[in-house]
């Protein structure tokens, strides 16, 4: 047999195809787009968290040099665009007509010939506000007599959601030998993508088409919703998601800027660019987490975990806009029984409106799985310490064993596959767990604070099966359309949209694997709604589980047809033709073969009689289940008794995302997620004072990790394929953000446990640690 070309299929650590343009500064991000006659949109933003608008005077701004248009809520009202629906079935203001509901909310749009002219003119708009009482604390927001954030609602109560079996859970709690409980606050943070949100909107009045280049992770859904709200026919709207500088869930939301830019383009006839400055973006775009919970875990005294319950209040800001599947207002939080064989569980969550921007979006959290994993992994650690049992031992004792998979949790999720003990043991070996515990013993005697924290998480990704999942009614399939040209080259388009996850390479690798065509010959495109098949976009680690699967299935459809053509070319019966990645040969006579390229050419020049020409397929994949990646993370910390600073000495992450498409890319996702978890645990927070003033509103005040603080992550893998995914693959993009915060906090609390500390809320600022040390008489003054 002649040499087969290197195709870089599944498992290849091939370098990425998309990098060629990025390393030469030739990416096309929204702000790189320039169209003839383009003007710039900037916003007047509210200094108040809650205020009635008495008047808006735009005369000076309208007369300022270079100003082309000024748009207020009153201008949007007759178009029915002052309010638009959110992805959660609520509605949100685009521009206010009556009052503002969070600090830095967009109030007036100013369009000018240059961005500097727009910024100057913004300062000339006069808005007269009448401040109103502010509600910041979501628990207070739910109390009788609280100021009401939304005039279209009677209370600040957004939803009440329950999952699990309250009676069974309560019964087990009553019977339990040991119960531990903890109040925990998961602080509000921001995704902090390096590229702020923005768009270029162009309404061509001659063609009647609206084109928007937009920082969006879900272009098709945006197009459909845009069509419904603007009444522009869907075939006349084109959403293009160009290169995106990081999404992490923050670019799923539809922001007022997109709508106002579109309206401005319709009004002026010119392309309109809107790009947030960081100081605009950070305090006004969707936040993550902001979740107050009480979690409790019940066990027998022999360490068998029995039941888990959580009661929580979730802060949604002024608009409920989470991109959660519609049946799950609190996302997939009910995965909170985690990696353990719990016998009962119950969660109840109440959502509240407050005078803050929309919160709770999926920041690399797989729809609230970060919160769920944090809850269970903290409580398991607290239980271990309470029982005096090693936290690794307690976990190993209670893990769902491999033979129980597929495993139905008491919350109704069917975990596809898992090997939790395998991952934890690997992590323990890699970090030298026993040795570290001995070292900790020694150090404790000398008064040195060292901690070891574990997080053994189970994730749930790949939304999602049509029987359970939809967003605004649209089912959560995803799609691949693959076409092979006569010369054997491929164009493949998808309904997802990478913002750095490497789809141009990974999808090509899948197709390469299935069709035996080298990845250099495969072009992957995403993001243009005019050409890409309909999809729900990329977030919540869903791309590989859905669109990746679609790529495999579509490829196999192609292979079926290809086989028929090959049989025709080989003059053999179809059942005698064998496929071997890249070629078809006759059973028993391997020298008699046709390559896939031969077949492609024949599809256009010499198809079998009666067969339609061409060689392509499209598939909309409805996943039969979610996929459940998992892992074990172990963190070692040393705490400075003088300053309260925590140094992460080591961090080992063992992840299992099933079969791996590209190990380099998986590593990159883990490193990035761990760094986000590290930032979350130690230094990131958006907070508000009682007047609703926001703190942490730019990159000076809000600190994300640099290369100096970020620990050197040590990663490893186990591979437990998904039985239902065509490639045995699971998602992985969010595993590390989901799993790591608990590991960090567990480590620090482990260090301080002997002093009587059971919990510290993130971020673990040095001053919080120092305060605890002072309280416990363990602080040093040198």
């Amino acid at each position, binding site marked *: 047999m002649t040499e087969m070309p290197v195709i870089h299929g599944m498992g290849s650590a091939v370098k990425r195809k998309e990098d060629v343009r990025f390393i030469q500064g030739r990416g096309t991000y929204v702000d790189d787009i320039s169209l003839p006659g383009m003007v710039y949109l*900037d916003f007047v933003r509210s200094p108040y968290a809650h205020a009635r608008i008495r008047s808006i005077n735009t005369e000076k701004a309208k007369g300022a040099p270079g100003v082309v248009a000024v748009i207020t809520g009153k201008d949007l009202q007759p178009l029915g665009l002052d309010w638009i629906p959110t992805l959660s079935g609520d509605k949100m203001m685009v521009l206010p007509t009556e009052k503002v509901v969070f600090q830095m909310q967009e109030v007036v749009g100013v369009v000018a010939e240059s961005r500097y002219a727009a910024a100057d003119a913004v300062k000339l708009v006069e808005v007269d506000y009448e401040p109103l009482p502010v509600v910041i604390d979501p628990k207070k927001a739910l109390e009788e007599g609280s100021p009401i954030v939304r005039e279209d609602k009677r209370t600040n109560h957004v939803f009440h959601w329950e999952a699990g079996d309250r009676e069974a859970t309560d019964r087990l709690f009553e019977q339990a030998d040991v119960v531990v409980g903890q109040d925990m606050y998961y602080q509000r943070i921001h995704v902090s993508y390096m590229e702020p949100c923005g768009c270029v909107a162009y309404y061509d009045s001659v063609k009647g088409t609206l084109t928007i280049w937009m920082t969006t992770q879900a272009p098709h859904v945006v197009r459909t919703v845009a069509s419904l709200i603007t009444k522009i026919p869907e075939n006349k709207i084109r959403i293009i998601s160009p290169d995106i500088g990081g999404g992490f869930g923050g670019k799923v939301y539809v922001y007022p800027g997109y709508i106002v830019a579109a309206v401005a383009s319709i009004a002026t006839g010119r392309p309109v660019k809107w790009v947030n400055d960081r100081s605009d973006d950070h305090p006004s775009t969707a936040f993550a987490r902001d979740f107050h919970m009480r979690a409790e875990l019940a066990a027998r005294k022999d360490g068998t975990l029995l039941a888990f319950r959580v009661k929580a209040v979730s802060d949604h800001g002024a608009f409920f806009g989470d991109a959660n599947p519609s049946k799950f207002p609190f996302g997939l939080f009910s995965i909170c029984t985690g990696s353990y064989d719990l016998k009962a569980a119950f969660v109840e969550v109440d959502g509240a409106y407050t005078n803050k921007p929309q919160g709770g979006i999926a920041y690399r959290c797989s729809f609230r799985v970060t919160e769920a994993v944090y809850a269970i992994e903290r409580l398991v650690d607290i239980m271990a310490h309470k029982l005096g049992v090693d936290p690794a031992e307690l976990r190993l004792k209670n893990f769902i064993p491999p033979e129980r998979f597929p495993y139905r949790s008491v919350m109704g999720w069917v975990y596809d596959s898992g090997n939790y003990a395998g991952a934890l043991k690997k992590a323990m070996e890699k970090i030298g767990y026993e040795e570290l515990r001995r070292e900790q013993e020694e150090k404790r005697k000398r008064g040195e604070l060292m901690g070891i924290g574990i997080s053994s998480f189970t994730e749930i990704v790949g939304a999602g099966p049509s029987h359970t999942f939809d967003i605004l009614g649209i089912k959560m399939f995803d799609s691949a359309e693959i076409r092979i040209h006569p010369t054997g080259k491929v164009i493949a388009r998808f309904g997802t949209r990478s913002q750095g996850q490497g789809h141009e390479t990974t999808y090509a690798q899948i197709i390469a694997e299935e069709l035996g065509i080298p990845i250099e010959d495969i072009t992957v495109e995403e993001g243009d709604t005019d050409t890409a098949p309909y999809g729900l976009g990329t977030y919540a680690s869903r791309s590989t589980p859905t669109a990746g699967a679609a790529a495999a299935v579509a490829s196999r459809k192609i292979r079926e047809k290809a086989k028929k053509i090959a049989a025709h070319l080989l003059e053999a019966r179809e059942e005698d033709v064998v496929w071997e990645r890249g070629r078809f040969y006759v059973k028993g006579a391997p020298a008699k073969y046709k390559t896939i390229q031969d077949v492609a050419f024949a599809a256009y020049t010499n198809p079998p009689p009666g067969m339609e020409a061409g060689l392509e397929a499209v598939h909309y994949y409805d996943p039969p289940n979610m996929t459940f990646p998992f892992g074990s993370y172990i963190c070692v910390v040393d705490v400075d008794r003088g300053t309260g600073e925590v140094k992460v000495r080591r961090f080992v992450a063992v992840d299992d995302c099933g079969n791996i498409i590209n190990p380099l890319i998986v590593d990159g996702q883990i490193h990035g997620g761990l760094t986000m978890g590290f930032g979350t645990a130690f230094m990131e927070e958006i907070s508000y004072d009682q007047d609703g003033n926001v703190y942490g509103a730019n990159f000076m005040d809000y*600190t994300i990790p640099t290369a100096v603080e970020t620990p050197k992550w040590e990663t490893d893998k186990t591979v437990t394929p998904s039985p239902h995914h065509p490639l045995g693959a699971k998602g992985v993009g969010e595993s590390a953000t989901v799993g790591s915060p608990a590991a960090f906090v567990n480590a620090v609390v482990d260090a301080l446990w002997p002093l009587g500390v059971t919990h510290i809320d993130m971020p673990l600022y040095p*001053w919080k640690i120092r305060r605890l040390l002072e309280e416990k008489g363990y602080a040093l003054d040198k």
Partner: protein
Amino acid sequence: MFVIPDRFSYTVAHSVEEAVELLHTLEDSKVLAGGQSLIPFMKLGYASPKSLVDINPIPNLDYLDDSGESLKIGALTRISRLCGSELVAKDYPLIHDAALQIADPLVRNLGTFGGNVCHADMGNDLPAVCLAMNAEMVASGSSGQRVLAAEDFFVDRFTTLLAPDELLTEVRIPKNRRGCGGAYLKLERRVGDYAIVGVAAQLEVDDDGVCRSAGIGLTSASTKPIKASEAESWLVGKSISDEVLDKASTLAMNASNPLSDIRGPAEYKKAMVKVLTHRALNLAYKRARGGLS
């Protein structure tokens, strides 16, 4: 709300005299040196000068000269030059430490010694260093040249003794001899941030480890940099030990009155003045004993 500066007129000075004249004649004018403190301020709207006088082209203001009685540092000396100087690393470890901890390497490429001290934010690191080292600040204005003691130079937040038409041209550091050592410790939320608190410690000890002189400057411990004079004078004549450092650092802490802000509560910052002063003095002492040329 784009973050861009208000308009200003722009001019370039090619000599100190020209710069002084321009500052004198142009209404509401400010010096543009490295710009790494000024430009961010202008973008955020905290400063809106009507004119900027760019002094970067002025020759002979970027130097490290220890040939005479003191180490003379030209006001336009870039922070990165301080970081890379073997002389500074070996003989003036306090300056070396501080320089390395100012912002990040990109800011250090443009930021200047003069700019860092004249901006006089409580979060700037070099003012505390100047206080600890009893530096002299040399300025040129329309009334000629004058030399100011660092101790008097820092008046309040963003305010120095410099007149609006005066240009800082040089900072003079007393020559470090054998028995001198210094250290700068900075607590920060993460690299590149302003200090939560910072401590500049300079010690001179004799061969028996007895303190001959001490300098302690505090960053972010009040609205302006603090010279912990009581702690400094108390240390003179004392034999350096853990107890002595404990007392000295307590005195330094008492001299501070930090504000609560996004970087931490006031009580924490105050406690950290003590912790960092102890550690910085300890390190300065080790270096002093380690010997200098």
